């Protein structure tokens, strides 16, 4: 991690007169942190719309703590966090499946949010650790299309060592990945060699490679945090080796040693290659992936814990109880399970769902962000929208650390989602991955 990660921040009143200050901050921070002109302006537009919307919402609120903008440069992207504390703000137009009707007066005020969410590459909404809420907007650098460069020469290595790669080796590894592995094993972030190199430089992705004394590559492994206590790993990828076992094992051991003393508790293999040495991992379950021609491919998922299990309190909807009990017994996980279901208590009106579309892999993942009475309807809208895009591999992650997320389980099951596996410590607590199988099972 470099010093470029040091955030810059601006605190200001939620007063529309200060809008130029907020937009100027976003534009200048975006440009200074590496975005091109066009991307910096899109980030600025997002901030402009969010600020205007929140300032309008604050006018009706009894009290407001103002707003903090915080920009962090991450080499391949700029992350702009908006911290605020305003009760009863309606965020429904942040939903991918939300639609704005020009003739609808009531949604006119929220048009800005609709625009904001679509002018950045990622957004997420969560409770801020300091109280109030945090809206995270991420705008990525625009990379030129990767040069049609051939993959570097690749041969069986007589001997090898595991090292942290230089930029050139990261880009070579990206080209070898593309040459020797099907798209199934490559998350979208890894398609552009320069972007992958920047993500490693930013510290967001960790990597190790196997090289021989001439510097020729024989394999690679990658990992990144996807929750506070959970790392997601990719690989191990082994190139051109008659026996991939020794390099695969060495890469896994070295990666585990590298992350053993971080805050990560679990190391999840969501993109395991056939070379993964299974004896280091625990089997979580299978996910089904559908290719565009409708072929179904079962993909086993693995994980291991990096620390001794400290136990965990989890929420569970009664309909999920048999599945959880089976999984926790099989994985020998000590869990204090508390039941939760909606019984007429007050809930916000509108829910928000985060959607990640991986167009390279052809799958979508839904993530509940805010609870609302319209959760079931909202899920249905998202499902329909994703299916009209031709994507048939659809997941929904439910965090058992948040009771309100567990209350969505009956709706998910009603819609044809089935619990497939539990990722220990995958969210605030354990994460259950549901998959929409509909009539495909």
């Amino acid at each position, binding site marked *: 991690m470099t010093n470029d990660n040091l955030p810059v921040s601006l605190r200001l009143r939620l007063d529309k007169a200060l809008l130029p200050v907020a937009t100027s901050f976003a534009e200048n921070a975006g440009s200074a942190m590496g975005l091109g002109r066009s991307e910096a302006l899109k980030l600025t537009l997002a901030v402009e719309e969010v600020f205007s919307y929140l300032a309008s919402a604050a006018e009706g609120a009894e009290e407001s703590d103002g707003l903090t903008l915080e920009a962090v440069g991450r080499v391949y992207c700029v992350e702009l966090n908006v*911290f605020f504390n305003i009760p009863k703000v309606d965020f429904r137009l942040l939903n991918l499946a939300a639609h704005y009707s020009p003739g609808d007066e009531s949604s006119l005020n929220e048009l800005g949010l609709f625009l904001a969410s679509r002018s950045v590459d990622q957004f997420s909404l969560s409770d801020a650790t*300091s109280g109030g809420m945090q809206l995270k907007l991420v705008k990525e650098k625009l990379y030129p299309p990767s040069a049609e460069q051939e993959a570097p020469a690749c041969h069986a290595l007589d001997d090898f060592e595991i090292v942290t790669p230089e930029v050139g080796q990261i880009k070579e590894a990206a080209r070898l990945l593309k040459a020797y592995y099907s798209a199934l094993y490559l998350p979208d972030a890894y398609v552009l060699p320069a972007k992958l190199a920047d993500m490693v430089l930013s510290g967001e992705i960790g990597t190790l490679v196997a090289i021989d004394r001439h510097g020729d590559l024989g394999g690679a492994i990658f990992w990144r945090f996807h929750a506070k206590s959970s790392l997601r790993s990719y690989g191990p990828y082994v190139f051109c080796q008659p026996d991939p076992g020794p390099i695969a094992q060495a890469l896994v051991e070295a990666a585990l040693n590298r992350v053993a003393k971080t805050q990560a508790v679990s190391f999840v293999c969501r993109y395991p290659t056939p070379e993964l040495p299974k*004896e280091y*991992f625990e089997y979580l379950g299978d996910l089904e992936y559908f290719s565009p021609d409708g072929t179904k491919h079962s993909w086993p998922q693995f994980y291991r814990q*990096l620390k*001794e299990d400290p136990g965990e309190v989890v929420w569970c909807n009664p309909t999920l109880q048999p599945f959880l009990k089976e999984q926790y017994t099989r*994985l020998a996980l000590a869990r204090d399970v508390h039941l939760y279901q909606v019984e007429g208590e007050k809930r916000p009106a509108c829910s928000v769902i985060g959607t990640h579309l991986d167009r390279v892999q052809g799958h979508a993942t839904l993530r509940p962000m805010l609870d609302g009475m319209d959760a079931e309807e909202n899920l249905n809208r998202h499902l329909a929208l994703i299916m009209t895009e031709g994507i048939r591999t659809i997941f929904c992650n439910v965090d058992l650390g948040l009771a309100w997320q567990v209350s969505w389980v009956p709706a998910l099951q009603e819609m044809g989602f089935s619990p497939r596996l539990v990722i220990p410590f995958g969210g605030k607590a354990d994460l259950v991955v549901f998959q929409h199988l509909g009539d495909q099972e």
Partner: protein
Amino acid sequence: MSKTTLDKLVPGYIKEFEAYIPSKPDPELMKLYGVDHLYRLNNNENPLGPPAAAQEVISQFPPCKAALYPSGDVYYLRQALARHFEMEPDQFLLGNGANEVIAFAIKAFCEAGDNIVTADKTFAVYEWVAEFSGFKAKLVPLKDFGFDDEAMLRARDELSKIIFFCNPNNPTGTWWDEAKLRRFLDKVDGRQIVVVDEAYCEFVEEPGFPDGMRLINEYPNLVVFRTFSKMYGLAGLRIGYLAGSLDVVDIIRRTCVVYSVNVVAQEAALAALENGEEHIRSTRELVRAEKDYLAKETARLGLATQMDQGCFVMIRLPMSDTFAYRKLMAQGIMVRSMTGFRFPNWIRVSVGKHEAMQAFVAALESIL
């Protein structure tokens, strides 16, 4: 306090440091895993407890004395250590466990930009204390499970202030003999402080094993760590110490927190030191017999081991060590999973009484 404000107050090396979370108390763990007993085989504690004389001191401790501060510099115990090792009382500094004296040494010799040198797969506290104090820990890979002397010498630079070396090593049990330690100290030639952590030295019966205390006069840059937690069975009272030349200890004393060793620990340690011979003999006998038993049983199960000196054994499993930890916990057996020591798929088992070792072997066999 906003996140941004807090960020400004916290040094970068603290932000990147991950706190060690110790395991929950036994009753909580038993409740969590649904077991009615728990064999603790994870912390290398002495299954025989403290020596009888120390037990007597503890049981006779007058509660009203708890209102009084202890001796701030552990006066009587330092006198006793001096007699025991034929050194000067001022050559000893006591701490609230040996972990505390690690911090004394690092604070005394390191300043901004400095580093320490140690191994990647050894007792982690040297590395932790250095890193959360803002100093780099240069980690040298073990060679054949042992400290690699030449690689450690090569790892030094002009900013290296302390070399930490654990003899015998925890968790591998490997050790350097006196000739190798002398060669190493000769090559260091006084340019760094060399800390030899002898936490498990009382378990070693090998004739060539060096007594660091006897080398201090010859090598004034040598600092020896010892503890009352392991052989003397006083882990719960937290008391350990360092010894070195008068000049070096005089420097370290400046960073030493006085009054940090409680009065029961001081008195029990004194009794243990002066009346510990029979206890050491019994403990060694038990450790020897149970390590033989574990060697035989692990061989029967086809498991590789790393078994050398000390009251512990490493076992390589054909499965994730953290998974094995949970499955063993579900049977009331608590071992140390070794991923955190950078030995994935290995566990470390502390030697316990035979009943505990039998329970461990049965549980291990059931999960393989």
